[in-house]
Structures are given as structure tokens and as C-alpha cells.
């Protein structure tokens, strides 16, 4: 039944306007009910009509596993092709990608499509999942978010830091922080900047705790640092020494100091 032919031999077909961001199968062009599913620039490629096949399975065979952003873009491209849209079984497609298709997935797809290319490109590079992108559901408009999205790439955010930035950014946008306030100063880490804006009370307390630590003045060979670990402020005391004798002497001095206090 399916007859392979050179693309130039068949003039009546439409190209589906979707290209996955990653390389995908396009050595042979797949035609499904008059639509070429995997566009290619090669005009002498062999065209195979697989109209009798299941469209969802075909998409999976052509593109394999897609990251969530690519799935969102496929979803968008299908909206303009009613024949394809009606024949696509998202439940099955998501299942093949080990994901669950429900109204919430559809909601987050629609949200990510509102972001600009700077963000999409970063989200693709970092393979963000639907759960990573879920904070975007709270945004009703993307003006501020999109005007800051260049920072994801500029600051070379990792997936883990980027996830935190998205969450904080959404909070702060909804708290009516201006674009200017959300931009870090030159050389400043964006995540740290947003943390300061989002948790001012806790950070102020952390800082004052550092200034007024109850240990008093420490010997010069000791270094006290404080850092936040989840819901608690932790302190770290370091002793520098050259050898075991030096360490013993310093520990003795420390004991004397604590006795005198």
C-alpha cells in the first residue's frame, strides 16, 4: 500500500510547520493524509505515505522523546491543523513520554507558550520539566517575566538555580515588584538578589545574628561563618593550624579563653 516516491514527484502536499529543537528523523519524509509530518529542506527525499498509521505513534516514531518545551511547541503547531489536532491522542503521547496528560499539563503548556524565545531557549537547554515550570501557572501576564528572561542565559543559570529563580520571580512579580527592582546589579548573582528581595525579614535577622554573635571576640586563628541551611541559620567555626602541635596549642588557648569568659 504505502508507496515511496521522491518528494519532487508529488506536488500536492502540505508541510506541517513544526520542527523539534533536537535533531529528528527526516531521512525519509512521512506523509499522513496529505501532510508531511517531518519537514526537511531536502527536496529529493523519499516520501512515504503512512496515512493508515496511528498519528500519535507516528509523531513518537519521528521525534522520539521530546522535552516539555518541545511538546508545548508541538501542541501549538497542531492547533493550526485541525485534521492533525483531531487525530492526536495526547493521553497516549504523554504516556509514551512517561508523563501524565491532564488539564494541568495543558494549562502549563499554554503558559510556557507565552514566554519569549530567550526563556524558551534556556528552558530547552536545561530540559525543564512541567513540574519545574508549574509556577508560571500563577502569572496572568508575561510582560515583566519576558523582559527579564534574557538573564536566565546571561547568568548561565543551572537547571536547579533556574527553578528557584522562576519560583522567586513569580512570587515577586505577583507582589508587584518593578522590573528595575528585579534586575541584579552588575556582577551580582541574580538568584541571591531575588532571595534578598523575597526573604527580607529572615535575612535581616540572619545578618544581625552574625553581627551580635554571643561568642565574643574569637582568637585570630579561628574563623566564624554563618549560612542558611533550609529553615535554620547554621554557624561554622574553623581553626587553621600547621601541625598537630600547633593544633594542640590553639586548643589549649581556646580552653583558657572559654574559662576566662
Amino acid at each position, binding site marked *: 500500500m504505502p508507496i515511496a516516491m521522491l518528494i519532487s514527484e508529488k506536488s500536492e502536499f502540505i508541510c506541517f510547520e513544526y520542527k523539534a529543537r533536537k535533531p529528528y528523523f527526516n531521512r525519509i519524509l512521512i506523509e499522513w493524509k496529505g501532510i508531511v509530518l517531518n519537514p526537511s529542506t531536502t527536496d529529493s527525499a523519499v516520501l512515504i505515505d503512512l496515512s493508515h498509521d496511528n498519528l500519535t505513534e507516528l509523531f513518537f516514531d519521528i521525534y522520539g522523546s521530546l522535552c516539555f518545551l518541545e511538546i508545548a511547541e508541538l501542541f501549538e503547531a497542531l492547533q493550526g491543523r485541525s485534521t492533525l489536532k483531531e487525530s492526536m491522542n495526547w493521553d497516549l503521547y504523554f504516556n509514551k513520554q512517561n508523563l501524565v496528560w491532564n*488539564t494541568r499539563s495543558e494549562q502549563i503548556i499554554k503558559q510556557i507558550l507565552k514566554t519569549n524565545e530567550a526563556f524558551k531557549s534556556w528552558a530547552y537547554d536545561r530540559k525543564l520539566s512541567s513540574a519545574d515550570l508549574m509556577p508560571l*501557572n*500563577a502569572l496572568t501576564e508575561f510582560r515583566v517575566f519576558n523582559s527579564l528572561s534574557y538573564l536566565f542565559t546571561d547568568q548561565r543559570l543551572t537547571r536547579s538555580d533556574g527553578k528557584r529563580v522562576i519560583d522567586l520571580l513569580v512570587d515577586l512579580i505577583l507582589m508587584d515588584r518593578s522590573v528595575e527592582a528585579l534586575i541584579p546589579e552588575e556582577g551580582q548573582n541574580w538568584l541571591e538578589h531575588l532571595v534578598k528581595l523575597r526573604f*527580607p525579614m*529572615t535575612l535581616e*535577622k540572619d545578618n544581625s545574628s552574625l553581627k551580635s554573635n554571643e561568642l565574643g571576640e574569637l582568637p585570630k586563628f579561628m574563623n566564624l561563618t554563618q549560612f542558611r541551611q*533550609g529553615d*535554620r541559620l547554621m554557624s561554622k567555626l574553623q581553626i587553621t593550624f600547621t601541625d598537630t602541635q600547633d593544633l594542640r596549642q590553639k586548643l589549649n588557648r581556646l580552653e583558657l579563653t572559654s574559662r576566662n569568659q
Partner: protein
Amino acid sequence: MKKAWGEKFNKILIDNEVKDSAVALRFKNIFPDKVEWIDGPPPSLTKGELTAEQFSRSKKQIYLTRFKGKFFKKCPGFHKGLACCNYYVLNLGFQCDMDCSYCYLQSFINSNYLTVYTNIDDALNELQSFSDWKDRPLRVGTGEVIDSLSLDPITLYSRTLIEFFKDYPQWKLEFKTKSNFVDQFIDTEHAGNVIASWSINPPKVIESEEHGTASFEERIQAALKCLQKGFQISFHIDPMVWHPDWQESYAYLVDSICEHFKPSEIPYLSVGALRFQPQQKNIMRERFGMESMVNRAETFTGADGKLRYDLKLRTEMFNFIISRFKFHDPSWKIFMCMETPETWVDTFGHSPHHEKPLKSLFTPL
């Protein structure tokens, strides 16, 4: 809080299997125009996580069915790393008709319906199978995944449970609620082992975060009514929600409780601070926005993975409540709910097992 049932629910689905149950008949009488009879579970509108809108809608759609699983479970506080107070739960349904911004149901409910189980007899049979424990101080609550009393004027489960617990005087039955519906059981004879308890917050927090619940004053009045009829009462000041005037607000709460009740009238009080699963943050933010005190909270990941206030702030909040109660009367008995032994030590100076009035609660059964 008024029983405006008609406005509250859009649809009542009743499984034909339970159409003759007392609860189904009562729902049918109260909502004649809203009842739909179905065979088997309702067609699910979705699977997996609900959207914010679907979650809100699920509070307005009731589904009556028979539960085929286990009704009786250990409280989720029975968790490695948390101090456990030997609490058991009896789940007679799930989802809640009220709408608190911090509600933990938002993190796991994936049904489009507020489900009420009609086979309370099976639940009681299951409880009866624990009759070997008749002499142990078992504490059983019905308000874990559904409010104990907010639908009780319709289900009347409180009356059945109180009757059952008369044969188990060593056991305690706790109704935990944010409603003020107590009239439906207030006349029942009981064995003195029924605790009506209120999760309570200052008026400011109730108005901002606990939507559709009884007001502070209504809860106090309902508790007084129960007390007058010989029921034990309790208050759970949980979750404490930080806000700029939190000390003033919580001082008002403590002073009001102390003004209306004596320590001898309340076996114990519990306090807890805001906590929720990180994944719950998304739906909370979508449903209540950043005006909510809960969503604006400065929370950090705790040892159990939940988002909580800074440890020192929590300790400060607990100390404030506890010292204010103790200032009124040192004999008030207070414990902390779902807190780490570390917070216990920071607040009380020792673990719960060493807090004399509370020792029995925290001793493994």
C-alpha cells in the same frame, strides 16, 4: 457560619449502591433538585493533579459512596523525625467544604468531588476489631482529610460515633472542626470521652486565610455550648500564621480563650506553625495570590522536606503563645503538633516525653 446548604453545593452524586443509606436519603431530602444517581464512580473529569479551578469546584460537588478500604489509620504525624502523640484517624470521607489557603488537601486531592462515605457501620466494625486495645488510651480523630463537623448536620455521624464510644470509655473521640455546628449532637448521652475541638486562629487570620469557616467568636461560643453539656473541649492553635501584628493578634486569641475557659476544662491545647509540602505552593499561589499571608510567608525547607518558617521564628512564636497561657495560669497544658524534638527542646527545654502533663500522650502505646 450559616447552614446555607443550597448555595454551597452545585451537585450531589449518589452511587445507586448506597441509595437507601440513611445519609443518602438525608441528602436527597435536603437537595431534591441537585441529586444525580449514578452507577459506580463518577466519570472523572481529569486524572492526576487538579487545576486550581477544578480544586475549587470539587468543594461544591458531593459524591456519596461506599468505602471499601481501611477507615482507621495512624495520624500522619507518626513520621520519622517528628514527636508523635499517638493519634489515630478515622476517615469518613475526604475534601472539605471550607477553603483555607494553607489547607494540605491541596497537595494531594485529585478527585473532582467532596466524597462522603455512607458505610459508617463498616467503619465502626473496623474500630471494634481493635477491642483488644479497649483499655489503652487510644485517641481517635475524624478530622484529618475532612472536617469532622462541617457536614455533620446532614450526615449526623457524630451521634453514631458518640454512641459507639460509650462502650469504650478509655478511648477518646475527637471531632476537629472549623465550623460551629454542634447542635446536632449536643443532646446525646456520652461517656465523657468525646472531645469537641477547634482549630483556631485570631480573627485577622481567619478573615484573611480561612474562607467559609466559622468566625473566631462563633467557634468560642460553640465550644462553650459543648462544655456546658459535659463534652471535653480543646483548641488547636494551628497553623500559626506570621503577619506584621502577629503578637497582638495571638495575644488576643490567648486572652480570649483564658477569659472563657479554665485550664481544668481543656485537657490540652496544641500549637503548630504554618507548614506545607513544596509542591503545594503552586496551587496555593494560583488560588489565593500573593495577598495571602500564607503565600507571602518567608518559608524554608525543614528537616522533613516541608516548607516552614525559620526555626528561630517558630520557636519565638511557640514561646510567645505558651508563656502567655502560662502567665494566665501555669496549669495550662500545651503541646506542639508535628514539630521536631529539636523545637520541643528549644521551646520547653526538654523533649515531650519529659513534659509531665503531656507524658501520657507521647508514650508509645
